[in-house]
C-alpha cells in the first residue's frame, strides 16, 4: 500500500441516469507511467476528475498519495498536477503569465524562476512572452503541460495530452514523461492512441466504466496469443495458441517433424490489436 501512488477500490459514479463508472478498482505503483486506455465515453476523464478531487464518487474509496482527494482537496492538490484534455489557458495572457498564475496557486516563492525553468523543460522558453492565442496547437499543449508541472507535483494526471499533436511532438512528450517518471513522479496518462501504450509501465484498460485489465504491456501482449498456420502437402491447418512460447513446442510435436510440412506461418497480434480487441469499439458516445 505504501508503494502505491493511487489506490481505487469499488468506485461508482453516475451522472443522473448515466453510469460513468461501475465499480472501478485500480492500483498504481509510485514512480510509474500508467496508461489509461479506452474508447471515448469509457470513463477515463471521469476517473481522472475523481482522482484530482474535482468530482465526488457515489461510493467507493480513492486514495492519491495516501490522501482522499475529495475530502482533503488542498493537501491532495498540492501534490498533484492535472492537465485537462484541451489546453485550458487564458488566451489573452502570455505563456509565462499563464504558467506563473497557475503556479501561484500552490507556490509563493520563486514562482518566476520555476515558471521559466518549466518552460525550458517543455521547450517553450523562446515563446514565453507570446500570447496563447498566437501559438500553434502543439505549443498550447506544451504551455498547458508547463502550467501543470510548475509546482513540481509528485503525481501527474494528464488527460489525452497528445490529442491533436503531431507524431514528432508526441514522441518528445513521451520522452519528457519518462524523464519525469525517472525522477520519481507518478504519471497517469489517458490516451486513445493505441500505439502509445508501449511507452507505459502499466496499462489500465477501461471499458463501459470498469477496469478490464491492469497489466504491463508485455503481459498484455502475451495474453493476445498467436495464430499458427501449418502447410502440409497441399493442405493448411490453422491453430490458435494461447501462448506462443508455451504452446508452440506441443504443436510442432503433434506434427512429428513430418517432411510433408513445407511451411509454418506464425501470426502474432500487435499490442495495438490486443488492446483494441479488449476495449471494443462500442461506447463511442463522446467523452465523460
Amino acid at each position, binding site marked *: 500500500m505504501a508503494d502505491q501512488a493511487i489506490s481505487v477500490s469499488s468506485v461508482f459514479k453516475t451522472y443522473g441516469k448515466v453510469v460513468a463508472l461501475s465499480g472501478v478498482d485500480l492500483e498504481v505503483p509510485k514512480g510509474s507511467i500508467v496508461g489509461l486506455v479506452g474508447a471515448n465515453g469509457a470513463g477515463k476523464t471521469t476517473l481522472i476528475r475523481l482522482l484530482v478531487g474535482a468530482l465526488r464518487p457515489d461510493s467507493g474509496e480513492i486514495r492519491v498519495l495516501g490522501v482522499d482527494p475529495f475530502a482533503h482537496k488542498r493537501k491532495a*492538490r*498540492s501534490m498533484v498536477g*492535472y492537465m485537462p484534455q484541451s489546453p485550458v489557458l*487564458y488566451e489573452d*495572457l502570455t505563456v509565462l503569465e499563464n504558467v506563473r498564475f*497557475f503556479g501561484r*496557486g500552490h507556490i509563493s516563492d520563486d514562482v518566476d524562476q520555476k515558471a521559466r525553468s518549466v518552460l525550458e523543460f517543455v521547450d517553450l522558453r523562446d515563446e514565453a512572452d507570446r500570447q496563447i492565442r498566437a501559438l500553434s496547437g502543439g505549443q498550447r499543449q506544451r504551455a498547458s503541460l508547463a502550467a501543470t508541472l510548475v509546482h513540481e507535483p509528485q503525481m501527474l494526471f494528464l488527460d489525452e495530452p497528445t490529442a491533436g499533436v503531431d507524431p514528432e511532438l508526441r514522441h518528445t512528450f513521451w520522452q519528457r514523461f519518462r524523464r519525469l517518471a525517472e525522477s520519481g513522479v507518478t504519471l497517469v496518462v489517458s490516451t486513445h492512441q493505441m500505439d502509445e501504450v508501449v511507452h507505459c509501465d502499466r496499462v489500465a484498460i477501461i471499458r463501459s466504466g470498469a477496469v478490464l485489465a491492469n497489466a504491463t504491456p508485455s503481459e498484455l501482449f502475451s495474453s493476445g496469443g498467436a495464430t499458427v498456420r501449418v502447410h502440409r502437402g497441399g493442405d493448411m491447418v490453422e491453430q490458435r495458441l494461447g501462448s506462443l512460447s508455451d504452446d508452440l513446442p506441443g504443436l510442432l510435436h503433434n506434427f512429428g517433424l513430418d517432411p510433408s510440412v513445407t511451411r509454418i506461418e506464425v501470426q502474432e497480434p500487435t499490442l495495438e490489436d490486443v488492446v483494441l480487441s479488449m476495449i471494443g469499439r462500442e461506447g463511442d458516445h463522446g467523452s465523460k
Partner: protein
Amino acid sequence: MGPSRIRAVARRVLKQIRRDRRFMILVVAAPLLLVFFVKTLFDATSIPAAGQERFVVPFGAYIVHFATFILTAIVLVRERVAQTLERMFVNGYRQFEIVGGYLLGYTALATAVSTMVLVALQLLFNLGYDLERLAELFIVIWLLAVISLSMGILVSNVAQTEGQVIPFIPLVIIPSFLFSGLMVPVDSLPGWAQVISRVSPMYYANQVLQGLVAGTSLSSNPGAVLALPIYGIVVLGAATFTLREHS
C-alpha cells in the same frame, strides 16, 4: 498564502482588462453616454433645474449599479464555461481567493466608472457641490458599485452558461429601478413590493443619496450609511459560499 493568491487573481484580471482596450473604453464610456441621455430627458421635462438633483444623482448611481453588476455576472461565468475556473481550483486557488481577487480587480474599473459618472453629473447638471459633498457622494456610489460587482459574482454562480446569465439581468436591474424609491416613494408601494425594494442595494443607496442631496451629511444618517457595507458583506459572503467548482 491567501492574500498573495487574491493579489495574483486581481493582477491577472487587471492585465486582461488592460489588454482589451475596447472593453475598457466601452465600460467607462457607456455609463457616461447614459448620463448624457438622462440629461437630455430632464431638459425635456418641466422640472426646474434646482429640483432635478434629487432625481439625477440617484439615476447616476443606478447607471453605475447596472454597469458594474453586468461586468462580473458575465465574466465569471465565462471562466466557468472555458474551464479556467476549474483549473484555478485544481491549481490550489480557494473560493474566497477567487472571489476576492475578482472583486479587487474589477473594483479598479468600478472606481473609474463611479468617478467618471459623478464628474459627469456635476458638470452636466451644474450641481455645484463642494469637494466634501462630492467625496461623500463618491463613497456611496462606490460602495454601491462594489456591492453590484459582488451581486454579479453571485448571479454568475447560479448560472452555468453565459446564456443563463441573461434572464437574471432584468430580474435584478428592473426591480432596482422600479422599487428603490427612484420613481415613487417606497412607502407608497404595496407590502410585497416594499419587501423586494429592501432586497435591492439601490434602495439603501437611494436613501443615503437623498439625504446628501438634501444637504445632510453622511454622519447624520448612520443607519442608512451602515446598511450598504452590511449588505455588501452579506452578498460577498453568499457569492463566496456559492462559488462551486462544478455545477
